[in-house]
């Protein structure tokens, strides 16, 4: 059990390790402490060019069926792995050609197919309930207008969107940030343990260590446009010569 869960102390250690690497790679992660406590969260901002696909019909039925199937344990972690590995390298540019629902419900304030630059803010927060990290994020236009849940859904790459909507592994909802009290979007952590288990199990079997946060982030990050440079895994290898961890091994354990 303890293999697949992350306690708070390990969370902090994994974050520190990621921060050290981020400093070298200069990709912008920082630690934000909460005043008067030992707690905090990892934070990164990024500009993304996104095509918001206004032809996507996002309605309450989608979210309801998501929440209904949320606790059914009928789908394994395979879907998640495939969907993460199917990521094209230019996942930022999104073409809306997948949805068959052509009705223009006008749920998005942005016209169909328009590309725009958005400011994304990502937070990694520890959840003591699920003993796992949780990815929170918000996005706004350069003018400062916050994106709605509908717009966030439609900015998810179509490959991922189908996976998300048809699998209970992850779903995007708006939630209160547990440390800031502000509205954020989040990927629900209730299946994290399940999809992390085979990765951690494989690592243990092969006597190599993995940074839980890094491995987890490489699975959930791309869903919302947060790509993790491969150098993180290469660096990990150099930083700890006793370990046999390579990007190939990581990929292998994810896809096996």
């Amino acid at each position: 059990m303890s293999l697949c869960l992350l306690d708070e102390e390990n969370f902090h250690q994994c974050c520190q390790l990621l921060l050290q690497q981020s400093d070298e790679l200069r990709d912008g992660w920082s630690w934000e402490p909460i005043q008067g406590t030992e707690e905090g969260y990892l934070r990164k901002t990024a500009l993304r060019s996104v095509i918001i696909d206004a032809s996507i019909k996002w309605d309450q039925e989608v979210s309801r069926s998501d929440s209904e199937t949320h606790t059914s344990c009928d789908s394994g972690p395979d879907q998640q792995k495939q969907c993460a590995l199917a990521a094209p390298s230019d996942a930022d540019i999104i073409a809306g050609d997948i949805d068959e629902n052509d009705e223009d419900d006008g749920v998005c304030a942005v016209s169909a197919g328009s590309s725009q630059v958005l400011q994304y803010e990502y937070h990694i927060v520890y959840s003591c309930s699920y003993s796992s990290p949780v990815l929170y994020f918000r996005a706004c236009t350069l003018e400062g207008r916050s994106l709605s849940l509908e717009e966030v859904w439609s900015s998810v790459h179509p490959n991922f969107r189908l996976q998300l909507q048809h699998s209970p592994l992850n779903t995007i909802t708006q939630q209160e940030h547990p440390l800031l009290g502000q509205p954020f979007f989040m990927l629900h952590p209730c299946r994290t343990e399940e999809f992390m288990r085979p990765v951690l199990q494989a690592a243990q079997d092969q006597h190599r260590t993995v940074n839980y946060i890094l491995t987890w982030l490489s699975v959930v990050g791309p869903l919302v446009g947060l790509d993790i440079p491969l150098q993180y895994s290469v660096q990990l290898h150099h930083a700890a010569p006793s370990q046999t961890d390579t990007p190939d091994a990581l990929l292998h354990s994810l896809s096996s």
Partner: protein
Amino acid sequence: MADDKDVLRDVWFGRIPTCFTLNQDEITEREAEPYYLLLPRVSYLTLVTDKVKKHFLKVMKTEDVEEMWFEYEGTPLKWHYPIGLLFDFHASNTVLPWTITVHFKNFPDSDLLHCQSNSVIEAHFMSSIKEADALKHKSQVINDMQKKDHKQLWMGLQNDKFDQFWAMNRKLMEYPTEEGGFRYIPFRIYQTLSDRPFIQKQFRPVSSDGNAHTLGDLLKEMYPAALPNDGEPKRNQVVIHGIEPLLETPLQWLSEHLSHPDNFLHICVIPIPTD
């Protein structure tokens, strides 16, 4: 001695007399009368205010109406907190009825979650129950339930059906007798001193030497500033469902009897008014 089950009923049927008034800046065709309602403590603002909305829409033009939201004395009210918690935290030392201002424009995006349909409330409610069960039973009870069981919990709350809700909720309150309680107690402590919305950590109902943890033990560990120092007068009230339970009350009992339907024990620490 009254049966402990009566406590569940008393908690469920707790009501707060409330007066809704329309924000003065809203554009109306004629003056809007206030609207009075008894709000269930255990429910959510956006779930029980259809009548309030209908009432004010009668004096407004459709084009002037955006998403409805609520405010008390300048503070936007978070609909995703149970009503009783909002009242205890923001308004417990004021006179009744509780006066809430209703807005139909300038939705405060940076403070409030959007809530455009009951399915959003349902998703939030079920998500809280799941989180609570992750703490109590490693999610085993909630995952063993069927979809219709989840629906029964939600419908029980939505339609104010005590028996329907508790027929299912009692399963979430079970635990192995030999362990003396849940794995961890799902609780949140709300306080006014920092920007952080609440304190939530892992806390066991029984200490390592086998004694039942009390409400006082929890506060001492999580928020010692809430408790008075020896010999000093009490500075704070510790409020759950509008009452101040004794600090000696076992936490497991509180979790089983004074939790909200979302299965969390919501604890407010409020400074005692000085005047």
